[in-house]
Structures are given as structure tokens and as C-alpha cells.
């Protein structure tokens, strides 16, 4: 069910601009990996290269190898559409579909791919996904209202519900809690704990406590200088990274002495 990810020597480009350089990292199945690092160091870029969303941007490309359970993600016979069905994603900014109701937004993955479902089954998926994302109580009375009428944080939770309703095997989350209050944040963290038993989860966060709370592994990215590409500085068990990091930059970043 859950799949592991193996990245080796990955370089990620926007046109000629090398954004992320030479990343090698194994990500175990059924684990939570947190990416931390300063703004602009390439966390989102790297995350997007794990489900082939990076190449959607014109001129963007990658070099190197990503293996999903041993299969080459960028192999010639890999269909990016199938890859993305298997690897779900929550974006840094909430992006519900404005033409769809809350209900349809949750089921967007199924509806857009014209998957046939019984009404009861669909209702069931919607309720389960919204409950997991901690949004059910707030929207159960207005499932037919447009999704863009929700608050920013509610929209973000709606997008999380949309991503988990298709039951991807790997879930990539780009700062899913940056717009959420502490209560919703803890709901999402509970969700991550729960999902971890079945799925592989990668989460980008700027919140050190969150990284420490939810993740098994932590990877620290940093920029070597202005205009230079971002690099993976170190990665390992979260306790180890937080208690005695090997690189002084990691220690400085974690303790908030940075820049």
C-alpha cells in the first residue's frame, strides 16, 4: 500500500536557473518526513518534483533519479497523470475550485476523472474526508455552498479533505497549517498521525515544534548564498536532528539563531 521514495542526485531547474542542487534522501514507507529550512531554499520545489508537478511549469525540468518503490518516477514509461493519482498533494496556498460546491470539491478527484459512485458511497467519502480534515462540523449544514465562500483556513482544510478523499499512497503537504489556528492545526496533526499507519507523508513546515511533534524523519534544506541553489544540508531521525545536529547551520536554524 504505502510506498517508499528514494531520491538520488536530484537537480531541479526552472529554465536555466538551478533551484535545488544534488539532493539524495531516502524516505521510508509509512513514515512522516518533515522538510524544514529558510524561505526560498527550495522545499516546495523539491516537494513538487516528487509527484511530477514541477514539470507543469514551463521550462521547468529535473535531472537525477527518483525511485518510488524501486520504479523510476521519471522513467519514459511513467505517465505523470497516473503518478499524480497515486501521490496526492496539498498546496502552500489553498486552491478550492470556485465553480464547485464544498461537496463537489471534496469529490473533485473522483468527479473530474468521471469515476462512477453510488450516492451513499459518495456521501460517505465526503463525510469521512471532511471529518479527518476537521472541517465537518463547520460545513455539514452547507455542503452545497461554493467552496470559495469559506475562510482561508477552512479552504485549506477543504483542500486537505480533497487530497485525502482519493486515498493516495503518498501524501505531500506544503505548509498545510500555515493559515490555521492551533486547534485546527492539532486536528491536522492528529490526521497525519492517523494517516501514517497507511500512507507515506512528506510535510513542509516552518514550525519547528510541529516538525518535532509529527515527523519521524527531518530534512534540513538551506541556501548556500543569494542566487545559489538550495541544498539538502542533513537529514535523519527527528530526535537526532533536533537534539544534536551535525551541521552548525542546522543547529542555528532550529534554535532560531539564523541569518
Amino acid at each position, binding site marked *: 500500500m504505502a510506498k517508499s521514495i528514494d531520491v538520488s542526485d536530484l537537480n531541479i531547474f526552472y529554465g536555466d536557473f538551478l533551484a535545488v542542487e544534488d539532493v539524495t534522501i531516502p524516505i521510508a514507507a509509512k513514515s512522516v518526513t518533515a522538510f524544514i529550512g529558510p524561505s526560498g531554499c527550495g522545499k516546495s520545489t523539491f516537494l513538487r518534483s516528487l509527484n511530477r508537478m514541477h514539470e507543469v511549469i514551463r521550462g521547468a525540468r529535473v535531472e537525477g533519479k527518483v525511485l518510488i518503490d524501486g520504479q523510476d518516477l521519471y522513467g519514459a514509461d511513467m505517465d505523470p497523470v497516473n*503518478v*499524480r*493519482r497515486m501521490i496526492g498533494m496539498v498546496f502552500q496556498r489553498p*486552491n478550492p*475550485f*470556485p465553480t464547485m460546491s464544498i461537496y463537489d470539491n471534496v469529490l*473533485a478527484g473522483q468527479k473530474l476523472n468521471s469515476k462512477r459512485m453510488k450516492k451513499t458511497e459518495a456521501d460517505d467519502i465526503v463525510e469521512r474526508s471532511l471529518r479527518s480534515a476537521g472541517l465537518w462540523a463547520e460545513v455539514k449544514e452547507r455542503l452545497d455552498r*461554493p467552496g470559495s465562500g469559506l475562510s482561508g483556513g477552512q479552504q485549506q482544510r477543504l483542500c486537505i479533505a480533497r487530497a485525502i478523499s*482519493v486515498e493516495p499512497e503518498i501524501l505531500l503537504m506544503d505548509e498545510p497549517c500555515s493559515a490555521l489556528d492551533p486547534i485546527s492545526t492539532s486536528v491536522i496533526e492528529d490526521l497525519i498521525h492517523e494517516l501514517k499507519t497507511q500512507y507515506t507523508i512528506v510535510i513542509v513546515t516552518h514550525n519547528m515544534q510541529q516538525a518535532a511533534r509529527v515527523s519521524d524523519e527531518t530534512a534540513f534544506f538551506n541556501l548556500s548564498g543569494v542566487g545559489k541553489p538550495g541544498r539538502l544540508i542533513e537529514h535523519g531521525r527527528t530526535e537526532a536532528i533536533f537534539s544534536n545536529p551535525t551541521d552548525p547551520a542546522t543547529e542555528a536554524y532550529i534554535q532560531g539563531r539564523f541569518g
Partner: protein
Amino acid sequence: MTTTLTPPPVDVSRELYGARLPTWGPRAVITAAVAAAAAAYAVGVNLLQAALLAWVICMVLPLWSAAVEGRRKATDRLVTTLVSSAFVLAMFPLFSILWTVISKGTKVLSAEFFTNSMRNVVGEGGGIYHALVGTLLITGAAAVISIPIGIFAAIYLVEYAEGNRLSRWIRFLVDVMTGIPSIVAGLFAYALFVLFFGEGVRMGIGGSVALSVLMIPILVRSTEEMLKLVPNELREASYALGVPKWRTVSKIVLPTSLAGIVTGVTLSIARVIGETAPLLIIVGTTDSVNFNLFDGRMASLPVFAFASQRNPGIPPEFSIDRAWGAALVLLIIVMLLNLIARLVSYFFSPKGER
């Protein structure tokens, strides 16, 4: 020893408000200007000079303001006055046209006017049924031809060919096409149909082709702008759910921009429905009803108005009245289309936007 530091008192009301003209000031000046103009007109000054007088009196406002309120607000009032006068000036031809067409056109409007053709009519009576049918059929066929071509071309440009060299060329050609004179479109359609049917061909569908040539670039442009307004995040959200590109375009991008696209379609129809020159060349006109786009001459409202005015017969009044009537009907159709465009963009645009 303690010292208390008290800041010098500031008269907040003066600081914030300053001296102002009374709120009735601008209205009083405008009323005075209109009254003066009306009085001048009543004693025999011509309309243009009276309007000029009113405008000059309005310019008192910035001077008054300069004396009372100071430079900054006077400049503001001056610019406000100039912008408002430009607006009134721009509205003038519009209302003048509306007034002329309505006052001259309404008197012929009657049930017969809409249900009779001009077949065997000399002098009084007759109607525009044949021209109405012709206009609706020709414009309808033009819409059927152009809407798919225009919308698909725009989708290609925005979603599939963004930034490549072919798209730059297409965009350039579309811009050029937006500017071609309608008579050229008519000649093009005529030349095209002569190839198949020989000299002197007259056919409704030829008019539709000519109108399409005018409509397609407008449609491509407006649809393109609407598609570009769809945020990229929505496309990405769809791709991230494993939705293929064509489904993303048809189920996310198009529905999101539907209101704008339909508005563009309606406005482009309104733009070509009054075209006269191309129809004169390839469709001609006739006195009887012709439902067949592929066979012979057809009447249309603009050409009917033109022909009635050009060859009014004896006595001319009836024919000229009918021309005004046809012009009024055309104007009403265009206004209805604009109204529809507004309703569509109101009802179809995504709800709940913050």
C-alpha cells in the same frame, strides 16, 4: 522635582478638515450653469453656444475652490470638472442617436411591421419580417461558424501553445484581423463563393462567412483574456489530483471562465449584427421572405434600412419611415444582446468569491 511634558495643543479640526466649500457648492454651480444655458437658449442663442456657456460657468467651481480651499483641492475640483465634462461630451452622441432613432422609428412599429414582408408593397404598409428573418439566420449561422473556431483557437493559444513561436504568429494575425474593414471581409467572402458558384453569386451563407471573418478575431481575443484570468493554481490543483489536461481544460478552466466567454460571445454577435457592407456585396437584398441560407438573395435589417433610404420610391416618406423602424429594431436587438451579456455574467460567474 517632576516635569510633565505636555505637547502643544493641536487644533485637530483645522488640521484634518481645513477650509471647505459648502457641500451644496458644486450642485449650486451646476444648477446655475444649466439655468443660464436654458435662459440663453430661450432668448435665441443657439444650442451649441448655450452649452458652451454652461461649461464656462462650471469652470467657476475650481476658481472658487482656489480662493477658499487652497491649491490642492482646487486642482482636484478642476480635474473632476474636466473629467465630468469629457463624460458628458462622450454621452452626447449616444443619447442623440438614441433619441433620433427612437423618435423617428417608433411610429411605424406595429404588429404588421413585424409580420409582413415587402412583397408587392408599394407606398404605405409592408414590414420587416423578411429582413428580421434574414438577419437572425445570417447572424445565427455566423455565430455557429465562429463560436467553435474562436473558442478552440483561444484554448489552443492559452492552454497548449503558450509562449511558442506559432502562438506568437497566430496572435499577431488575430490582431491584424481585428482591424480589417468589414468591406474587405465582404469581398473575401464574395471571392471565395465565386470560386464555387461563379460570378454574381448571392447567398445568405456567404454573408455568414463574411461576418465570421469579423467575429472570429473578436472572439479569440475576448476568450483568450478570460482564460488567462483563470488562476494557475486551479489548473495545478486539478493536475495534482491526477486529472489529464483535456479534462482540466473542459471541467475546470472552461466552467470557471464561462461567464466571461459567454459575455464575449454575446458582445461579438452584437458587434456584427449591424454590419451592412459585406451583406450588401454577397447577400444583396430582396422583398420577400427567404428561409434558405443556401439559395439566393436574403434581406437583412441593415441592408433593408440602407435600401429603403436609398431607393425610397414615390412618395418617399413611407419607405424612409420603414428605414428608421428597421434601425430601431436593430438597436433594440443590440441592446437586448448587451442585457443578456450582463445577465449571463451575473448568473454564471462563480459564486461566493470574496
